[in-house]
């Protein structure tokens, strides 16, 4: 079968967001891949430079719908550090609760979408039904199901009254029991194992070399988690541990994400039980002093980094957003080589791409030998045929 170029275009049922793959396949095997993203590039960084600290937070929250709290918290945390603000502990605990609830609903969402990619719709329906419990908790706490708008420079916008805390605490055991059900469903469901095990495998060295972050890297054994290495919010006081795995394939990533789900439930339970009393906000000055900070945060998909530089006015001079999915694209392009066409949605879903975050683009030409190909292709990528003719979709 001659080489066939298959454009899996921006509009494709497998991809919940617009990304364009031009797969060069030989029969069912993928030989080369050209990836083109940033259909959702909106120019947020340019706009962030014209908005003061109160108006920039809603904009930064809408970089991505699923990890909206992450972007707002990492920015607020950075600015507070530049201003040397002392955020009250109650605000830190509320931010941690919302962060972990967001991680739970993001991982449940991912588990459903990954099952949907292989046509297993029952798990898709069940995981999303249990996600509704998390969504209800978030809606009670912050008033909105997706963009919570909880953050403000110097603390949190609204407080948690005991009724909300009890309602959330009552849902925790239900979630724990459901997660246990998913663990043994993923472990012994035959077709799931057939489609997940051994697909898109990445060794620890490759994970480190291609700069994979988050659950994708931890599934290959890279013990790297910003919440523990560079503790922020209330993670230093909460007893939890990093979940890693040695499988390295889609199955390993599934297990890591379910493990993280269990950890998040414990963190939320601990934070809810001993949330300190006290004020939830300290009023921040209008202008931030001159300074710069690399603020890092463990988003559900990996390590999120905002490089913020302020110049003494009430607007930020530059915010450079590096989202976790952008770091994972090299590793996904490497994993895809030599796999079947039928596995593309599964492998791409395995890194849980959040394309609205990734308003960046990468074209990674890989020869069919993944190991060396990266370096060699990197040197003479431009001479490869087919990458010039950016013909329209």
């Amino acid at each position, binding site marked *: 079968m001659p080489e066939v170029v298959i454009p899996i275009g921006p509009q494709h049922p497998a991809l919940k967001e617009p990304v364009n793959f031009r797969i060069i396949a030989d029969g069912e095997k993928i030989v080369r891949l050209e990836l083109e993203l940033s259909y959702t590039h909106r120019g947020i960084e*340019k706009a962030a430079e014209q908005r003061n600290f109160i108006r920039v937070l809603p904009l930064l929250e809408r970089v991505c719908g699923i990890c909206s709290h992450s972007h707002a918290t990492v920015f607020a945390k950075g600015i507070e550090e530049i201003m040397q603000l002392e955020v009250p502990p109650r605000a830190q605990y509320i931010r941690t609760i919302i962060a972990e609830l967001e991680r739970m609903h993001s991982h449940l969402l991912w588990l459903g979408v990954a099952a949907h990619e292989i046509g297993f719709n029952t798990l898709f329906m069940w995981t999303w039904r249990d996600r509704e419990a998390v969504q209800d908790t978030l809606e009670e706490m912050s008033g909105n199901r997706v963009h919570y708008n909880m953050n403000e420079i110097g603390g949190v916008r609204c407080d948690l009254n005991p009724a909300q805390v009890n309602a959330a605490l009552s849902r925790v055991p239900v979630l724990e029991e459901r997660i246990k059900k998913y663990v043994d469903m993923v472990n012994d469901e035959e077709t799931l194992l057939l489609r997940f095990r051994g697909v898109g495998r990445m060794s620890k060295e490759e994970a480190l070399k291609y700069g994979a972050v988050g659950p994708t890297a931890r599934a290959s054994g890279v013990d790297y988690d910003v919440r523990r290495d560079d503790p922020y919010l209330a993670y230093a006081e909460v007893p939890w541990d990093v979940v890693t795995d040695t499988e390295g394939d889609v199955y390993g990533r599934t297990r890591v994400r379910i493990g993280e789900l269990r950890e998040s439930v414990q963190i939320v339970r601990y934070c809810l039980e001993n949330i300190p009393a006290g004020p939830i906000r300290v009023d921040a000055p209008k202008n931030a002093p001159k300074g710069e900070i690399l603020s890092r945060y463990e988003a559900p998909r990996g390590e999120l980094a905002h490089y913020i530089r302020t110049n003494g006015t009430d607007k930020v001079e530059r915010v450079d957003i590096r989202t976790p999915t952008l770091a994972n694209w090299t590793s996904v392009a490497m994993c895809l080589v030599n796999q079947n066409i039928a596995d593309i949605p599964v492998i791409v879903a395995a890194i849980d791409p959040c394309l609205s975050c990734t308003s960046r683009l990468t074209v990674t030409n890989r020869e069919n030998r993944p190991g060396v190909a990266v370096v060699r292709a990197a040197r003479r990528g431009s001479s490869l045929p087919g990458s010039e003719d950016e013909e329209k979709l």
Partner: protein
Amino acid sequence: MAAEKASAAYGCEGLPGDTMTGPVTIDIIKERMKEFGLTEQVHANRVLVKTVPGKVHDAIGTLQTMLGCNRLITISTLDNGETFELLYHVIGPHRIIITLEIDLPRSQPTTPTVSDILPPAGIYERQIHDLFGIIFEGNPNLKKIILNEDWPEHEYPLRKDWKPGPDTFYGGIKVERSEGN
């Protein structure tokens, strides 16, 4: 320095004692990187090294071999008027962020690429080239990627002095009926 682990360029194991007081500490890093330029500690776990574009490549080489840094967090870019500022943030199992800072003149913003030793850098360099116009020599695939196909050449949106020109056409839809395929 014999105790310094001279591990392979990639995939060094987690260092014994992963806390900051492991064998790789801030002053070891400062002392090691002195040859590349002025080093100072800007933050509890961040070291800033001001270097020259020419030395970036082997600075990162030293970081990878001698100091066990195996991950590039990101490349940040700033436009401060007459110069562009590039910051390479690198980290390893020792949990200390080392930032290499270089300044490029606005008239001739070119710097050697690091994507051959740090593969993920290829992504960040392409993005910076698209939005700032900084040219990375040796990057294999430095062509337009972020902005859409018919975005005019040599228009770099994230520069401070860039304003969207009223008459230039930036792509999107011309309302002619394109034929359905």
